[in-house]
C-alpha cells in the first residue's frame, strides 16, 4: 500500500526499467604480503591496515535494458569476471550497488555449484532447488533438461567422470531451463562441439525472443557481433566504452593488437566510425528522388597520415617490424634477390586494423627493395589459418590483366593489392612474397602479419561465397 502512495505517476513516454542496474560499483581486494598480516589486521583493535588495496573495478555504472543481450569484452584481468560475479550476487561490491529484480541464472564457470560426487541428474535437481524451483517444477523440466544436455547414460553418473564438454552441456541445460529473467554466461559456450553450440545459440535466440535479458562475457568477438544488441568494453577495471557491438569489438581488437588502448587507436576508430556514418548519409542522399537537393560528394581521400607517410617513404630501410599487425614468429625463405621491406594494411578507412569485418575490402600495400633488375617481377599475397591451411593465395602472374612494370637494381617499388576478405571468421596470417618466377622465389614472408576477421553472420567452411536462397512457389520456375 505504502509503496503505491510514493510511486510517481506513470510517465507519458514508457521508459523500460533496466533489468539490471549497476550503480557506481567498485571492487577492492585486499592484498596481504603474508597470511600473518591478514590475521594481524583482523585482530587489530585500532583497525590498523596491513593490506595493499587492489581495485579490480572502478566506478562501473551500467544499465542493462530489459530484453537486450549485452556483451562484455575485455582482456584477461580487465575485471569482467569480477563484474559478473558482483552482478550475480556472488561477490559483494566494495562500493556501489546492483539493482535487479527477478530470477537470475549465472553460468560463471564450468560446473560452478556442482558437487563432483553427485550425478548430473542430482546436481540439476540441486541447482534448480537453489534457483528456487519447487520439486514439481523440477520434475516437469528434468526430462527436457536431460534431452537438451544429451549426454546419454552419463546423466546418471557422478559429475567427476564428465568431460568438460559434458559438464558444460549439463550446466547450460540446467541454467537455461530454470527460466531466469536474467541469464549471465561467462564464456561457457566456447566449450562443447559444434552441434551443441548450435543448439545453445538457438536457445539463446528463443530466450531473447521471450524478452529475457542476457549478459554475455567472451573473448569470441564474432559471437558478440552475432548475438549482442550492445557491448561494453572493460579495460583495467574501468568501463572504457559501451555502445554498438561493432564499435566496441573494434576498440577491443585495438587493445588486443597493441596491448593497450592507445589514445591514437581510439581516435582512429572514432574517426573511422564518423567517416562510415558520413558515407551512409551520402548514400542516402544519392538515393533521394529527383528534384531533391544534390548529394554532396562522398568524402574521398580520408585522412590517413600513416598511408601518406608510407607512400612517400621510398628509402630502403626495413620497417616491417614496426607494423602493429607484425608477427615476430614469421618464417622467411628465398634468395633475397629482392626484399619485402614494409607493408601496410587498410580496411574500412583504418590503417593496420587488428580486426576487420568478414567480407570487407582489404588493401595491402607492399614495399619491395630490388637488388637486381628484372623484366617482370612477380608479387603475391596469401592468407593462412593458424593451423597453416591456405585460405587464399594469389600472385600478379596468375592475375590476368595485371601488369607489373620492369624494375632496376636498387629501386624501391610499392604495390597495392585489393582483396575482399570473404573468409571464415578468426585469425588469419598474412603471407607476402616477391619472386622472379614460380621457380625463382626471392623473398617469401610467411605469417608476417596477423589479422582477425569478424563475422556478423554465421557460416561453416572457409570461404563466404556469395549465396542467396529463396522458396519457389508452386508452378514457379
Amino acid at each position, binding site marked *: 500500500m505504502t509503496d503505491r502512495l510514493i510511486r510517481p505517476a506513470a510517465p507519458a513516454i514508457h521508459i523500460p526499467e533496466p533489468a539490471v542496474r549497476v550503480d557506481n560499483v567498485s571492487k577492492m581486494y585486499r592484498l596481504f604480503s603474508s597470511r600473518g598480516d591478514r590475521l594481524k589486521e583482523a585482530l587489530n583493535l585500532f583497525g590498523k591496515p596491513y593490506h595493499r588495496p587492489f581495485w579490480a573495478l572502478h566506478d562501473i555504472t551500467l544499465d542493462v535494458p530489459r530484453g537486450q543481450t549485452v556483451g562484455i569484452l575485455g582482456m584477461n584481468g580487465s575485471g569482467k569476471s569480477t563484474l559478473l560475479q558482483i552482478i550475480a550476487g*556472488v561477490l559483494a561490491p566494495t562500493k556501489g550497488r546492483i539493482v535487479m529484480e527477478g530470477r537470475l541464472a549465472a553460468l560463471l564457470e564450468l560446473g*560452478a555449484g556442482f558437487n563432483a560426487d553427485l550425478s548430473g541428474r*542430482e546436481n540439476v535437481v540441486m541447482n534448480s532447488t537453489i534457483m528456487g524451483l519447487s520439486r514439481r517444477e523440477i520434475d516437469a523440466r528434468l526430462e527436457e533438461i536431460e534431452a537438451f544436455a544429451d549426454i546419454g547414460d552419463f546423466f546418471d553418473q557422478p559429475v567427476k567422470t564428465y568431460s568438460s564438454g559434458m559438464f558444460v552441456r549439463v550446466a547450460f541445460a540446467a541454467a537455461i531451463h530454470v527460466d531466469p529473467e536474467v541469464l549471465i554466461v561467462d564464456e561457457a559456450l566456447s566449450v562443447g562441439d559444434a552441434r551443441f553450440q548450435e543448439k545453445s545459440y538457438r536457445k539463446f535466440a528463443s530466450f531473447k525472443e521471450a524478452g529475457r535479458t542476457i549478459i554475455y562475457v567472451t573473448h569470441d568477438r564474432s559471437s558478440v557481433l552475432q548475438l549482442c544488441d550492445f557491448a561494453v568494453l572493460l579495460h583495467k577495471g574501468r568501463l572504457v566504452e559501451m555502445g554498438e557491438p561493432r564499435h566496441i569489438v573494434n576498440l577491443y581488437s585495438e587493445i588486443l593488437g597493441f596491448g593497450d588502448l592507445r589514445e591514437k587507436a581510439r581516435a582512429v576508430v572514432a574517426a573511422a566510425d564518423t567517416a562510415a556514418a558520413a558515407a551512409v548519409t551520402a548514400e542516402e542522399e544519392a538515393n533521394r528522388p529527383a528534384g531533391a537537393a544534390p548529394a554532396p560528394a562522398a568524402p574521398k581521400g580520408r585522412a590517413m597520415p600513416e598511408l601518406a607517410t608510407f607512400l612517400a617513404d621510398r628509402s630502403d630501410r626495413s620497417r616491417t617490424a614496426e607494423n602493429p599487425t607484425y608477427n615476430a614468429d614469421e618464417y622467411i625463405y628465398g634468395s633475397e634477390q629482392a626484399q619485402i621491406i614494409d607493408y601496410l594494411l587498410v580496411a574500412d578507412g583504418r590503417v593496420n586494423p587488428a580486426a576487420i569485418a568478414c567480407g570487407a575490402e582489404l588493401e595491402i600495400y607492399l614495399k619491395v627493395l630490388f637488388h637486381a633488375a628484372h623484366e617482370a617481377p612477380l608479387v603475391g599475397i596469401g592468407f593462412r589459418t593458424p593451423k597453416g591451411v591456405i585460405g587464399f593465395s594469389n600472385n600478379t602472374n596468375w592475375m590476368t590483366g595485371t601488369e607489373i612494370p620492369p624494375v632496376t637494381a636498387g629501386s624501391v617499388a610499392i604495390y597495392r593489392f585489393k582483396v575482399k576478405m570473404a573468409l571464415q571468421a578468426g585469425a588469419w596470417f598474412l603471407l607476402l612474397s616477391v619472386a622472379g618466377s614460380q621457380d625463382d622465389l626471392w623473398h617469401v614472408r610467411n605469417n608476417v602479419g596477423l589479422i582477425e576477421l569478424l563475422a556478423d553472420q554465421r557460416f561453416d567452411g572457409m570461404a563466404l561465397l556469395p549465396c542467396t536462397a529463396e522458396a519457389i512457389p508452386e508452378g514457379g520456375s
Partner: protein
Amino acid sequence: MLGFGVLNLLRTILRNRKLLWSLAVYELRGRYAATLAGSVWAVVNPLVLIGVFWFVTAYGLKVTFEDGPPYFLMVFCGIVPWIAFSEALSGGTNAVLGHAYLVKKIAFPIEVLPLVPIVSTVIVHAVLILFLLFIMAVNGLPPEWQFVQILYFSGAMLVFAAALSFLLGAINVFQRDTAHVVGAILTIWFWVTPVIWPADNLPDWAYSIIRLNPLFYIVQGYRGVLLYDQPFWFQWPLDLWFWAATLFVLLLGSMLFGRLKPHFADVL
C-alpha cells in the same frame, strides 16, 4: 540490533528450507557415494563406537549398579546425543569452507550452510534413537509416551550446536585452524560431560561447576526422560541457564556470520 540479525537469519533459512533439506540428504549421499554400503556407514560408525563403549564398560571395567537401569543403558543414553552434537558441531564448523563451490561461484543463501550438517545429523540421530529404544525394549524397558519429551532435548541440543556452528563456521573461513581447535575441544568436552560416567557421584562443589556445561543439561535430560521417568523440566532452573547461554551464542554467531558473510567469497 542483535536480534535483528537472528530474525534475518531465521527468515532466510525458513525461505530455503527445501534447499536445506536436499543439501543435507545429498551431503549424506555424497559423503558415501563411492562406498559399497553407502549411507549405512552414517549409522554403522556410531554403532561401532557405542558397541565399544558397551563392551568396555560391561565387560572390561565391569561397572554395575545395585539399583536402577543397567549401566550400559546409561552410557547409551549419554553417547547417542553426544555423537549427534559432536558430528553437528564439527560438520557445522567446516560447512562454509566445505561448500566453497556454492559460495564462490553462484548466488547462494550461505546462511543455510552451517545447518546442513545439523540436518543430516538429525537423520542419523533419529535412526540411532530408534536403535536405542529397541535395545531398551530388549532389556525390559518398553517405549512409553513420555519418551516424546526427548524431542525437546534433541531440539535444544541442535539449536545450541547450530548457534555454535554459525560462530565457528564463519571464523573458520578466515582462520582454518578453527576446525582443528574445535576437534581438540570436543575431545576435552567429551570427558567433562557425564557422557560415559555418572554425575551423581561427584562432590557437591564439582557438581555445581560441571552443571554449567550446556551439554550436561542435554545429556542428563536424555537420561532423565528415557531412564528415570522424569519430566523435561526436572532440572529447573538449569533450563534458564542453558537457554541463556544458547541465546548468547546465537546472537554472537549470527552477528558475526552476517558481518563476515560478504567477505566469504573473497577469501575462499
